[in-house]
């Protein structure tokens, strides 16, 4: 009895600390976000000021959502985060230096509608492709950093994503830097056919060589990450971190259901599910992610 009471008290204390920490973070992020340019949250807006949360159904003040890097203030639901916001979340202020900007997709197969898709994705996001990459500092630690963007054709991996990931890995290799890649991807970019499949091989040869060294690779998996990205650099990491509730897997639930007629359990392929199955190391709240990475990197310097 006493033992149980003590543990309840302990967990209440911990919870209290968590909440204080939260409030502190929230203020901190609100401050920095107000100076940032507006970016699309990726959410359906009800009236431009409030949006209804997919997770809890409560109205969220859009500005607040943005200030919290697209995490619902009520239920902590993590919405997809645009790559520039991700970089702003993780990199020390002013430390990010983009590399390989201006690299765009070719249309190797002349695939129907691909050009239009690329153009509208570019217009929507302002990005050249589904990725932002470069070097930065996280808590003072220099790192090579790449972040994918789900808004750009579903974060699909074509030649640009493959090449920029590879160059980021090579920069880490050459500079002896820790490597951090944040993934968000529906999988391969079918419009590039075999070239998209081969990006898995390309990123793997680079990563495999990098990992013969002694610098760490941390992969952060966000909602959703599937297919060719999980089956290559997404999971081949020293440390695999996932955001709460992120759906992560190889084949999507719908494909599995329609192929095998299996009934999938509640919470199938969520970050929590994958952690329970021993595949993910840590589940880290987005607003804790920078601190978490700093802590990890701190062990290695």
């Amino acid at each position, binding site marked *: 009895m006493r033992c149980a009471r003590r543990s309840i008290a302990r967990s209440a204390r911990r919870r209290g600390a968590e909440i204080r920490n939260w409030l502190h973070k929230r203020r901190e992020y609100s401050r920095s976000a107000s100076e940032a340019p507006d970016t699309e949250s990726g959410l359906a807006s009800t009236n431009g000021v409030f949006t209804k949360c997919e997770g809890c159904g409560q109205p969220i003040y859009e500005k607040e959502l943005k200030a919290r890097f697209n995490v619902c203030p009520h239920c902590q639901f993590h919405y997809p985060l645009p790559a520039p916001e991700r970089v702003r979340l993780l990199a020390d202020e002013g430390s990010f230096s983009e590399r390989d900007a201006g690299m765009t*997709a070719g249309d190797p197969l002349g695939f129907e509608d691909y050009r239009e898709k690329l153009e509208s994705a570019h217009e929507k996001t302002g990005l050249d492709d589904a990725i932002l990459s470069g070097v930065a500092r996280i808590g003072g630690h220099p790192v090579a950093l790449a972040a994918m963007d789900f808004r750009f054709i579903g974060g699909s991996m074509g030649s640009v994503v493959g090449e920029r990931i590879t160059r980021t890995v090579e920069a880490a290799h050459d500079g002896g830097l820790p490597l951090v890649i944040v993934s968000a991807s529906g999988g391969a970019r079918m419009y*590039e056919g*075999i070239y998209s499949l081969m990006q898995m091989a390309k990123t*793997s040869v680079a990563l495999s060589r990098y990992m013969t060294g002694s610098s760490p690779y941390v992969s952060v998996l966000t909602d959703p990450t599937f297919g*060719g990205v999980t089956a290559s650099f997404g999971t081949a990491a020293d440390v695999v971190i996932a955001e709460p509730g992120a759906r992560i897997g*190889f*084949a999507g639930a719908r*494909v599995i259901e329609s192929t095998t007629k299996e009934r999938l*359990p509640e919470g199938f392929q969520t970050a929590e599910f994958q952690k329970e199955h021993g595949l993910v190391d840590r589940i880290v709240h987005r607003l804790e992610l920078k601190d978490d990475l700093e802590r990890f990197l701190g062990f290695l310097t």
Partner: protein
Amino acid sequence: MILEFEKPVRELEARIAELHRLAGPNAELQEEISRLEDALDAAKRRIYSNLTPYQRVQVARHPDRPDFDRYRDALADDFYELSGDRLGADDPAVRGGLAKIGSRSVVLLGHEKGDDVNSRVKSNFGMAHPEGYRKAGRLYDLAERLELPIVSLIDTPGAAPARAAEERGQAWAISADLMALARVPVPVVAVVIGEGGSGGALAMCLADHVVMLENSYLSVIAPEACASIIFRDEKRAPEAAEAMKITARDLLAHGIADEVLPEPLGGAHNEPEAAVEAVVRAIEGTLSKLSRLGPESLVKNRYERYRRIGTHVTEGEMAGTRGPGE
């Protein structure tokens, strides 16, 4: 099984067989037979030399197509099979072990599709679970330790899309194989003998030399799935197969495959001995070439081989890079 486009050929063959049975010494019928045989020959040439990409996919999936066992028997006098992933399971969809090809010992592995209802179900139609990829990974390690070349025979619709596969880390198992193949310091030769379905195929064909049989294919996604996602209509699979450039000749042109082996007219299933023989010769030739390279050159060449593949366009640069060979 008779493929739709093969029907005229099969009908002619049936008529010829029937006439043979009836003819005996009848000269008139003999003449008719030889006329039909000419027609058969012409029909075969007409149909088989102009297969569309999607028809080739169907040939690649043909149940009578020579499979792992068939090639293994032709390749190796002795095959010393090894089982299991050493983590709790053995996946019948992936086979592997030690084999002696000519005077050379190798680690031979490949997909198993099964050849009757029971074995097909047991091997999940060649769609491996994580255990299969971990078994492959274990064999890559073994090849490295024993300094033996790796020869893999690819024939899979793809990695199993299944609940159990996800629960046991399908993506993790595949990425581990890619990482292992990327740095294994022994020659790696891959032959796509049938279907090369996506990551499930790539986990066994990141190689120094990729051989494809003429009617095999290698694709990021099955044409049916591509059609249903991009065209929102599975029936447009033939168009998707065409658009994605997945045939052996396309991949050779794009520098992804290094060598295409012509198949007997109508596909490997019509004359398996010839197809098997061509594969055996290609593997022997490749192994002998690669055996001249040291471990460092092998890994370095493999790096560069894959490093080049991409079609991105960089500002200030002329154009994106292409695959090797371009």
